[in-house]
């Protein structure tokens, strides 16, 4: 290109960036906010998952394969059989459990090992000790440095654990060698079995194979020989199963953060679109002077790239600090409880840094693309003529691309999940959003034609302006429609979820008092004697007990929950919130089980099907007699009659109890009786249904707090977008305002005109945003939530908060429009009539 042309381009474009300083800064900030949120979420969840993987890797040591089974363990007789296999070089039996710390609410992972076997497979678990016999003593353990720190215990001190309802105290003999973040304790396997009521049972066998053995072939062979309910897999499969529990939550957070970035891209689009329109005549001049279309597009894209580079750089720095603050304040899982014991170190890795930098730049450049192409396509001669601005938006008008995109979105919403993730659901939301934005010019024309023309000159003029230039209005609308629709859809989804959760809690908590052995861990339970004492307490009219177990049905997934409980088939709907018909197995058919919705989605346990469930090492056939709603166990849960469970396992212990009180008896009275009459009764957790409900809803709100924050960010960016668009439009129309001031329009009237325009545009944005938001909420409720978490829910629209938010957005945007118009109302605008451009 000729040097003079380059100079001309540089002068015009650099001058424009300088002229649009405020709007350029807003665009940079919007991209920065999106990048910061995305990067922070990725940094935190990535670090937490990495920490989880490192933990599993460390604990499994050099094992090539692991044999795992139910959470409660399996018969230790399996171990010698495995150790004797000729392909196995070394086998190490493990008892791994989460032990409830006595008189504390948390747990500690206990790893019981045979120190001689473990040395060959997991040498990292064998601690250095002055007295080597400590490794064999049943009353000692070695805690990891992280556990010692968090529990405030030193070598020589002791830790007490709750086993059933009694306390078991073990001496800290030394520190286990481990990296800084893993929180666990190692003890002798026999001691673990004895102390934690696991006699004769182990939970895992780690295998190191002989050199030259084909690991996968051996695994397949061994799997066929293992008893039901046991699985053999590579250690990393365990990591995947642990990860999968939180994966949907993490992906949803990432998507929400990306939505904020997308809204930022829309802001760049509206800013650039209007800036390009304002400079239309300037570009036409450049084209007349010999600048090619390609050069013009490249320069305008470069403007977008500059915004993206600045936004990404700022966003990455902000994201890093945001992530650190978030981990410190709300934890690595944003309060959702997936990574409760993890305190990951946030280390910026090059790949995510590069990825988010690239995303920010690309989104900003994409935001600039359509305006740049339009500027390049505009024929110079008409573009030089005043009043040609609206022609720039004519290409945004055809409705078929928008309709096709929306139709594609609707079709995508019916597609099944991919690898357990609702990728088509996300795609459907994106397509619905983009399609509606593409239709906005048409919708704006339609809606503006419906609005009655007011009598007052300013409002009348405002409406005529909007009708005359719907393309400009549509560009201003893009960011506001996107943010309002996201706000509405999230609000509907969260309200639907909360109301459904509340209804579910009411249904599943029919008793007067609930008792549980512990909130977490595998070691607390109520013995038969404890159960009998509780049932016989004064004031207790009826007691039902429940045993919760965890079964491994698929080694690539987390264990499913088995609930052995008293089931009254005649009054089942009072106990479980059934979402299917209730069926009774035909005579001769296997006995019934009732499964939650996740079991249908993940394992295909549909109503009426006969399924095989490994209980007590034996595969047992059952008939699925009903599907129930469950917001507590997205990994899957199966309810079975307790008598049948006892018959199959001989396990009469219980983890939970539901108590119905006699008339006149009070919860406090029963609570006091449990404390005083049951040995270890003070360790039981007792709650009335109201407390459980309150606690659950609080936990729900805490989990969704980060969702609200990300949603708020999208709305703020949307308002930025509106402000930016209005600022640009007002600047572009300063000659118009100058003329209007000449012919007798007061500043107040111009203010009223701008306020009317702002309110009308936002009103249209709200109508479109509400409609689109409702559609997106359908996809969120029926597709994304269902496929991510397997939760069904009834759609509820929170009218009052949504109306309040809409009015707030309307007021804020009207004020924004007024503030943007302050130039128009200044005396200088009067002199603008002298300007040609």
């Amino acid at each position: 290109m000729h040097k003079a042309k380059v100079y001309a381009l540089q002068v015009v474009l650099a001058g424009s960036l300088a002229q649009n300083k405020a709007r350029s800064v807003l665009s940079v900030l919007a991209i920065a906010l999106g990048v910061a949120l995305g990067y922070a979420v990725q940094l935190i969840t990535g670090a937490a998952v990495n920490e989880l993987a490192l933990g599993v890797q460390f604990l499994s040591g050099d094992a090539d394969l692991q044999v795992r089974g139910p959470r409660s363990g399996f018969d230790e007789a399996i171990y010698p059989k495995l150790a004797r296999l000729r392909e196995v070089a070394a086998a190490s039996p493990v008892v791994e459990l989460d032990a409830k710390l006595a008189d504390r609410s948390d747990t500690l992972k206990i790893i019981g090992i045979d120190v001689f076997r473990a040395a060959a497979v997991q040498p990292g678990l064998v601690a250095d000790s002055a007295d080597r016999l400590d490794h064999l003593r049943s009353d000692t353990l070695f805690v990891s440095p992280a556990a010692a720190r968090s529990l405030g215990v030193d070598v020589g001190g002791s830790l007490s654990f709750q086993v059933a309802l009694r306390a078991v105290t073990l001496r800290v003999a030394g520190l286990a060698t481990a990296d800084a973040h893993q929180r666990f304790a190692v003890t002798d396997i026999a001691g673990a079995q004895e102390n934690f009521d696991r006699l004769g049972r182990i939970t895992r066998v780690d295998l190191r194979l002989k050199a030259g053995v084909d690991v996968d072939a051996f695994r397949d062979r061994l799997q066929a020989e293992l008893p039901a309910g046991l699985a053999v897999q590579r250690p990393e499969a365990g990591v995947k199963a642990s990860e999968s529990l939180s994966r949907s939550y993490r992906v949803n957070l990432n998507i929400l953060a990306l939505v904020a970035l997308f809204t930022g891209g829309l802001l760049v689009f509206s800013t650039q679109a209007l800036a390009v329109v304002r400079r239309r005549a300037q570009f036409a001049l450049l084209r007349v002077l010999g600048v090619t279309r390609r050069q013009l597009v490249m320069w305008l894209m470069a403007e977008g790239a500059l915004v993206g580079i600045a936004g990404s750089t700022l966003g990455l720095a902000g994201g890093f600090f945001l992530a650190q603050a978030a981990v410190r304040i709300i934890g690595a899982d944003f309060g959702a409880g997936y990574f409760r014991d993890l305190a990951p170190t946030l280390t910026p890795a090059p790949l995510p840094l590069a990825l988010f930098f690239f995303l920010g730049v690309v989104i900003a450049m994409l935001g600039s693309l359509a305006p740049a192409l339009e500027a390049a396509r505009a024929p110079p001669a008409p573009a030089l003529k005043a009043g040609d601005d609206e022609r720039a938006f004519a290409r945004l008008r055809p409705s078929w691309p928008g309709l096709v995109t929306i139709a594609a979105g609707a079709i995508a919403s019916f597609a099944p999940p991919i690898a357990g993730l609702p990728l088509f659901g996300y795609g459907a939301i994106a397509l619905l959003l983009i399609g509606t934005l593409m239709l906005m010019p048409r919708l704006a024309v339609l809606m503006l034609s419906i609005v009655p023309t007011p009598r007052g000159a300013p409002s009348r003029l405002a409406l005529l302006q909007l009708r005359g230039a719907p393309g400009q209005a549509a560009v201003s609308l893009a960011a506001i429609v996107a943010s309002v629709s996201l706000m509405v859809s999230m609000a509907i989804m969260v309200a639907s979820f909360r109301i459904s959760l509340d209804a579910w809690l009411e249904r599943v908590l029919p008793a007067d008092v609930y008792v549980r052995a512990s909130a977490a861990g595998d070691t607390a339970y109520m013995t038969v004697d404890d159960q009998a004492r509780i049932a016989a307490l004064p004031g207790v009219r009826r007691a039902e007990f429940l045993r919760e177990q965890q079964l491994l049905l698929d080694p690539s997934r987390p264990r499913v929950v088995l609930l052995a409980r008293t089931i009254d088939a005649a009054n089942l709907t009072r106990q479980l919130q059934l979402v299917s018909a209730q069926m009774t197995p035909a005579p001769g058919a296997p006995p019934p089980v009732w499964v939650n919705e996740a079991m249908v989605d993940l394992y295909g346990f549909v109503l009426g099907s006969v399924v095989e469930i490994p209980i007590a090492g034996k595969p047992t056939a059952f008939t699925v007699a009903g599907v129930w709603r469950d917001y507590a166990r997205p990994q899957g849960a199966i309810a079975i009659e307790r008598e049948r469970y006892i018959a199959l396992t001989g396990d009469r212990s219980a983890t939970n109890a539901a108590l119905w009180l006699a008339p006149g008896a009070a919860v406090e009275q029963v609570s006091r009786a449990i404390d005083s009459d049951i040995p270890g009764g003070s360790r039981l957790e007792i709650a009335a249904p109201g407390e459980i409900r309150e606690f659950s809803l609080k936990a729900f709100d805490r989990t969704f707090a980060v969702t609200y924050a990300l949603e708020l960010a999208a709305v703020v960016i949307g308002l930025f977008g509106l402000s930016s668009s209005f600022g640009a439009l007002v600047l572009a129309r300063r000659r118009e305002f100058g003329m209007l001031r000449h012919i007798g329009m007061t500043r107040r009237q111009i203010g009223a005109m701008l306020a009317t325009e702002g309110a009308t545009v936002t009103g249209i944005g709200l109508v479109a945003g509400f409609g689109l938001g409702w559609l997106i909420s359908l996809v969120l409720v029926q597709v994304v939530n269902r496929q991510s978490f397997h939760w069904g829910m009834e759609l509820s629209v929170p009218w009052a908060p949504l109306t309040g938010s809409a009015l707030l957005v309307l007021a804020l945007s009207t004020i924004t429009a007024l503030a943007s118009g302050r130039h128009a109302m200044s005396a200088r605008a009067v002199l603008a009539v002298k300007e040609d451009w």
Partner: protein
Amino acid sequence: MATKNLPFANMDSALHPAGRLSLSRATVTLAVMLVVHGLTKSYAGPRPRAVFAGVDMELAPGDYVAVMGESGSGKSTLLNLIAGLDSADEGSIKLDGTELTALDDDALTALRRKRMGFVFQAFHVLPYLTVAQNVALPLSLLGVAGSEADARVAGMLAGVGLSERGASMPRELSGGELQRVAIARALVHGPQLVLADEPTGNLDAETASQVLSLLREQIKANGAAGILVTHSRVAALTCDRILQLTLAGLRELTLQ
């Protein structure tokens, strides 16, 4: 009410309705509508600059004067001061006896709305309104609507030769037509004073000549007074009088 002697016999003035009204009161004088006295303007800033000082001017209904001067002599500034869009350092501007320099912004705006019309070099016809809607703009600001407004707009459009273009959008019009729309808009509400700032600066000679004739004809036909700011001698010659603005004030010019 201030009066002045007729400077020269002017057929247009004599035939003007406002002129006849004044003649009925005093046969040799017309009511002076605009009196500018001792107007001084300078620009402050790091390098203060005096624009003009001691500007005096009187205008009666039907008067149509041209103001000429070198670039930067303050012609447009004088127009802005008369329109109440800028404030003078000293001096007085009276329109029908109302002292403009004593009015606040709202009162000045109301005064402009009722009594003044403007024609700009760059037309400033709103691109999103039809031709008729553009012309009706001052009426709608004055609250005149319905059939009365329609009749006045139709009359003005006929006057400027655009009867058939009322429903057209501005982008469909030529520069000359756009300026005709602007002239119609400047006069549709019956202003006493029309201020035109280089109205033919963006037009070719032939179109300019047509627009200037039309502007004069419409000002006279509507009984208004007009001030035309121009660099063009040809344009100035369409006015009744030609005044030259200098640092020392206005002086009358005679052009051949």
